[in-house]
């Protein structure tokens, strides 16, 4: 029954939530109206921020950092991960180092990087790089290693060179695993950049939120949160879509 509902109906709970929010705020069920603006007031603020250009500017700063940091981190992570999964020697050499550094929370690097890099555009990019490189490297290596050895043997007996085994069999079969990593980490990149902007970098959405906090502009904070939620959602969906396209037919 649920499967037969049109995708539009997936929005219904969201609409109900927004309506409840509007009603409770209008009826002032909670004391202190200033701490709980209604949905319509928030949307009003959203449009005025858009018109003033502040939101667009902050947002594009954050987006730029995420795009650069995440693409650099994931490309490096993919390359190293593929090599680690493919060649045992690389795995033996890098594996132990990566498994030691991997568990450090990305934000834990912030104080160190603030001193090394200083407070500039490179700081959030470096943080995002770190937060995407290690997990993607790890999941990619695992994905490549998990490809059934039978397929690799079959490819060899069919005359495939080592490189052809990698590109023709291992990588396509590891794609689902690799994309799971990319999808999760793209969301993570957004979470990390906001945190970095809140504590260290004076520009971007995170910084805008901190400024709004000091001015007790709850409406602005909520606008930022909504933008972030939509962005993370959009990123993950994008990767999901690409994965579906690449593995269409056989999964």
């Amino acid at each position: 029954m649920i499967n037969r509902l049109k995708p539009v109906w997936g929005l219904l709970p969201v609409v109900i939530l927004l309506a409840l929010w509007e009603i409770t705020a209008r009826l002032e069920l909670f004391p202190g109206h200033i701490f709980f603006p209604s949905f319509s007031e928030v949307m009003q603020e959203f449009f005025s921020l858009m018109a003033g250009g502040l939101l667009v500017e902050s947002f594009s700063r954050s987006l730029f950092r995420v795009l650069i940091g995440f693409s650099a981190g994931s490309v490096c992570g993919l390359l190293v991960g593929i090599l680690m999964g493919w060649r045992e020697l690389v795995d033996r050499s890098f594996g132990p180092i990566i498994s030691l550094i991997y568990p450090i929370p990305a934000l834990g690097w912030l104080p160190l990087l603030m001193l090394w890099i200083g407070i500039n555009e490179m700081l959030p990019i470096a943080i995002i790089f770190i937060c995407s490189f290690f997990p993607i490297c790890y999941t990619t290596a695992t994905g490549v290693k998990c490809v059934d050895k039978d397929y690799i043997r079959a490819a060899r007996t069919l005359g495939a060179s080592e490189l052809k085994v990698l590109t023709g069999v291992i990588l396509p079969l590891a794609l689902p695993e690799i994309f799971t990593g990319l999808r999760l980490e793209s969301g993570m990149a957004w979470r990390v950049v906001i945190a970095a902007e809140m504590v260290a970098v004076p520009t971007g959405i995170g910084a805008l939120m901190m400024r709004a906090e000091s001015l007790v502009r709850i409406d602005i904070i909520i606008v930022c949160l909504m933008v972030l939620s939509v962005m993370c959602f959009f990123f993950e969906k994008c990767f999901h879509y690409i994965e579906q396209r690449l593995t269409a037919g056989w999964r």
Partner: protein
Amino acid sequence: MPCVELRRVSNFICRNVDLRVEDSGILVLLGSTGAGKTTLLNVIAGLVEYKGSVLFNGVGVDEVPSNKRRIGYLSQSLALFPHLNAASNIAFGLKTRKNPSSKVKKRVKEMLHLMGIEHLSDRYPYNLSGGERQRVALARALAPSPEVLLLDEPLSSLDYKTSKYLRIEIKRLQQKLGITTIYVTHDQREAEEIGDKLAIIHNGAVGQVGTSEEIFFNPLNKQISEFIGSPNILCCEHCRKLVKGLVEVKSGDLNIVVPDNGNGIKKIAILPHDVYVSRNKPPGPDVNRFKGTIIEMESLVNLTSIRLRVGGHILLAEQPTEITKELNLQAGDDVHLILKMPRIKTLSTGL
């Protein structure tokens, strides 16, 4: 097509294996699970480490990596690439050898036609039935025209009917292409049907090599005899034609009617589970029915083997334990027994 030879091959499973498959011949490796049959195939394919040497046409290929050995290998799991459809799976081995795409297309079409699976070319492996997968995998292995074909229990995952049908097809293909083939199975019937020659593999070593008759009538040792089902083998003193297709042979005090093979019969063999034991005289014509005495009985979990003395011979019979209990058979009892005629194998040469 080359003849394939293994000389003193040893590794973690195999022990000093010497084997030879003639040019365009088909050798069946027969043995129970874990005997090392698959490992031997992997040795020939160059997929595992080994000591000793593998020769194709007398030339050592030990230094040749598996992608250059010109073999077609059908593993037990088939390993059809799940991300490629049937046609692309078949094309895989052609593309790796740098064939121009027009030639690849033509050959794929040819293979699809040869296996009778043109209608499956766009389907992905998850969307194929067991028998269809088998055909696609075989087409993929044969597409690059390998010189040696290695088949690892290719039919074990199929239902009886499909497997029987594919068995005939494989045999026909093998003869048509004249490709030197090594076929692994644990099923004795399948081995007899498909192979020119059988090699019994036991504990990583070759127990006996020969035609199925040679092995059946003349097992080299007790292990091999037990593996093929401990057949009762009787020598024939003389035989007399009854009607067309039937011969009565005399062995000791027994006159046994067997199918005629037209060349005179020297030995006959019957497996213990084709010997029926009953307490009362069975109804019907008095053909291949004898009186005997139980010497001893041995019960396994659900099978009882019964040793009988019949007209100067000792015969082994085997039947489900519950039937033995129902008949209340004891050592020393006099019983009637029936030899199931169509199941009696005959041998004309004096092995």
